[in-house]
């Protein structure tokens, strides 16, 4: 077994009373792909910053290449060949690809003048090392996220890197881009460079890494070869709870019930055509497709944002015009864009205010809020949803995570929403909150009869929570699958044939 490149032993780190890292050890060999997993706030970022020399540990030793450091500075970390690619990439969006790549070496040489030929040569060499081709004179801002990331990786590799740390590298990538990233990570590995992959996405960890270290609340809870883990063990280690992966089961309403949503031949010039489907009360329908397949356009149409559409949309058997957001809301349609399920709370405000935030217009008379009605409405909702709190006047921040999610849920119920359109409901959300969001969406469908359209890239999420899955491609519905009769691999294969 080769000597480890990086060896952290018994690292402790406190921040104003919080034990952010508690006796964490980590060992990475040269050329190893290692995954550091943990939920938000588990101490992942702190650990990266200790390795990068940004934070000095309170105690413990750091050994790089057999050399031990009591206090590692950022410069020393760089000199030892450690490069961190943060989520924001630290690139200049207004400069060209070439300049972004060559800027560091130009500055290092202490140049006064810019030699553009040399800039292009340095940049070309950096991209060649990764075997990728990106237009050197393109402005960085014009590249997709994946392109920016490749530039950041190429830049990190320029200075004799021995280990690259990638912080949540797949967050904004599509499935195909993730595959490409992985093949590049493997190419880096062949140059005997170690890669520390920081993530909370289990499938990706299992696919790419050789070893996994999991931390929770600053403690290392598991470590070992990837073959010893599977999705459910990782989830358990990360959250400290058992998660059941039961699929959503939908019981059709009695015959004769009009569908909650009926879309007839919906079209938007240049974007959508011939979309027809229906959705019963209490049903969760997943929609997926490659980026640009028109799935977001479908969501926007349902929310009245494409006034020039053709075709008809019926809610509970009644046609609704959907030429403005107001009409969509009046028809009982709620649209939740990415991340809003977790970001939609005013944490320092009271539970009551949060519950009523979306309906103040309705419950106020002549611009004055009716206090009594306000309180009774909120009280009944707190009872209804069993939100555990002594008083609705307490701030939302005093609630546990699960109860906070119920507040979000209650707000949607109060708007009398009958159809909930979710676009990427758990993008960038860690495993624990993800499970809570899924439970909440299911509860909305099961207990309150909402129809849910769940648009997502996350195939396991759809298979688990939807009872039907629609696949879109180039503005059309190309396939409709019973979730019970498929799995993520089959879906993923289907999407690959479309690409």
């Amino acid at each position, binding site marked *: 077994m080769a000597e480890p490149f990086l060896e952290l032993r018994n690292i402790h780190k406190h921040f104003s009373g919080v034990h952010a890292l508690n006796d964490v050890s980590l060992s990475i060999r040269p050329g190893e792909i290692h995954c550091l997993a943990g939920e938000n706030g588990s101490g992942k970022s702190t650990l990266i910053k200790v390795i990068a020399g940004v934070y000095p540990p309170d105690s413990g030793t750091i050994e790089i290449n057999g050399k031990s450091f009591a206090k590692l500075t950022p410069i020393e970390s760089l000199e030892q060949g450690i490069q961190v690619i943060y989520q924001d990439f630290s690139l*200049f*969006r*207004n*400069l060209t690809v070439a*300049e972004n790549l060559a800027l560091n070496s130009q*500055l290092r040489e202490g140049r*006064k003048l810019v030699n553009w030929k040399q800039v292009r040569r340095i940049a070309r060499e950096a991209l060649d090392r990764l075997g990728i081709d990106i237009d050197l004179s393109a402005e960085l801002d014009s590249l997709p996220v994946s392109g920016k990331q490749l530039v950041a990786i190429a830049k990190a590799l320029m200075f004799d890197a021995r280990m690259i740390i990638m912080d949540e590298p797949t967050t904004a990538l599509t499935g195909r881009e993730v595959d490409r990233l992985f093949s590049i990570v493997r190419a880096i590995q062949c140059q005997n460079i170690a890669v520390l992959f920081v993530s909370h996405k289990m499938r990706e960890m299992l696919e790419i890494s050789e070893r996994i270290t999991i931390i929770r609340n600053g403690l290392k809870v598991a470590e070992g070869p990837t073959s010893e883990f599977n999705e459910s063990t990782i989830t358990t280690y990360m959250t400290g709870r058992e998660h059941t992966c039961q699929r959503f089961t939908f019981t059709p309403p009695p015959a004769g019930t009009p569908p909650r949503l009926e879309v007839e031949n919906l079209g938007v010039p240049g974007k959508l055509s011939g979309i027809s489907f229906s959705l019963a009360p209490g049903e969760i329908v997943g929609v997926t497709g490659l980026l640009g397949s028109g799935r977001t356009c479908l969501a926007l149409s349902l929310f009245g944002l494409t006034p020039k559409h053709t075709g008809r949309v019926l809610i509970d058997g009644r046609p609704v015009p959907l030429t403005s957001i107001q009409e969509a809301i009046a028809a009982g349609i709620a649209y939740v864009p990415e991340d809003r399920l977790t970001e939609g709370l005013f944490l320092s405000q009271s539970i009551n205010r949060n519950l009523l935030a979306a309906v103040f217009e309705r419950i106020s008379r002549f611009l004055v809020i009716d206090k009594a009605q306000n309180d009774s409405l909120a009280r009944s909702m707190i009872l209804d949803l069993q939100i555990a709190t002594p008083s609705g006047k307490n701030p939302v921040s005093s609630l546990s995570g699960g109860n906070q999610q119920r507040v979000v849920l209650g707000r949607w119920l109060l708007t009398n929403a009958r159809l909930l359109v979710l676009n990427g409901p758990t993008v960038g959300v860690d495993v624990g909150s993800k499970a809570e969001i899924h439970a909440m969406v299911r509860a909305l469908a099961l207990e309150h009869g909402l129809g849910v359209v769940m648009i997502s890239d996350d195939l396991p999420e759809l298979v688990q929570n939807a009872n039907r899955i629609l696949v879109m491609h180039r503005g059309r519905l190309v396939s409709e699958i019973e979730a019970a009769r498929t799995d993520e691999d089959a879906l993923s294969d289907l999407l690959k044939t479309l690409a």
Partner: protein
Amino acid sequence: MAFLQRAEYIVGAVLVLAMVTIGIINPAFWQLDNIFSLLRSNVVMGIMALGVLLVLVSGGIDVSFPAFAVAGMYLTIKLMLLVGYQGVFWPFVLATGIGMVLGFVNAFFVHRFSLIPLIVTLGTASMVRGFLLGVVGTSMININIMPKQLINFATAELWSVVNPDGTHYGLTAMILIYAGLAVAMHLVLTYTMIGRSVYAMGGDAVSARRVGFNLRRTTFFVYGLAGALAGFAGMLHSSMIWLANPRDFGGLDLDVIAAVVLGGASIYGGKGSVVGTMLGVFTLVMVKNSLIIMKVETTWQRVVVGLIIILATAITAYRDRKKSV
């Protein structure tokens, strides 16, 4: 259509369109004397615009340059009259130096206290103007006492035409100074590390510091050079119109910023080019000039300038948003 992304082509197209339109409404537009007069009006505004471009690219904004231009010009000419000095070179050096020092004051506050450049430059502009009027004087220096050599210098022409009726017009040689400064600014911005540091700082100041740029030096460079260009332009202006007026350049700040933004510079920093700026200045001067020819009241010109600044900014913002989707 990648070429549409380049601001210079858009401004160029707008310019051509405007020229054709104006030429149709008023055929006199295309006469040589009008073109010469337009180019002449470009000189002072263009030189100031080069400074404003620098500040905008760095992510800042400067509304103090008209005040600094007045300070450089009025103090220098007052001093020349006081000591009875004749000459051209040293007065320009002095005016440029005054502008630069005042620019350093901007840089000091912007850098040292991380203040918003708009507030700092509003403050310095007000102080400088107040100081000039209160301490140095309120009187205009007219042609009868303006230093003769300055007037002679600024009346030099590249090409003169004499009309049959004996009147004469020509292309001012000052256009060469403008062109020279523009080329120099282009070279500095494109081929020097300090120039690139201005773009880096305007793009992302945190990252710029992280990769090792000295932002203190960049800030002093940006505001110092912008002030120096203003002082120089003020002196040139006074020489060209044979008059030193301590109340000059009122409202010019918005005109110049509008021209630079029209030329594709981003009001949020990080983007802008010398070619675009020159086109923007030409377009704005031309539009204002045509409004005068068409006998539109000057008050309405303010409306037009305000409209241009909002439209130009809106278009750039719209373009940038489209790209990021």
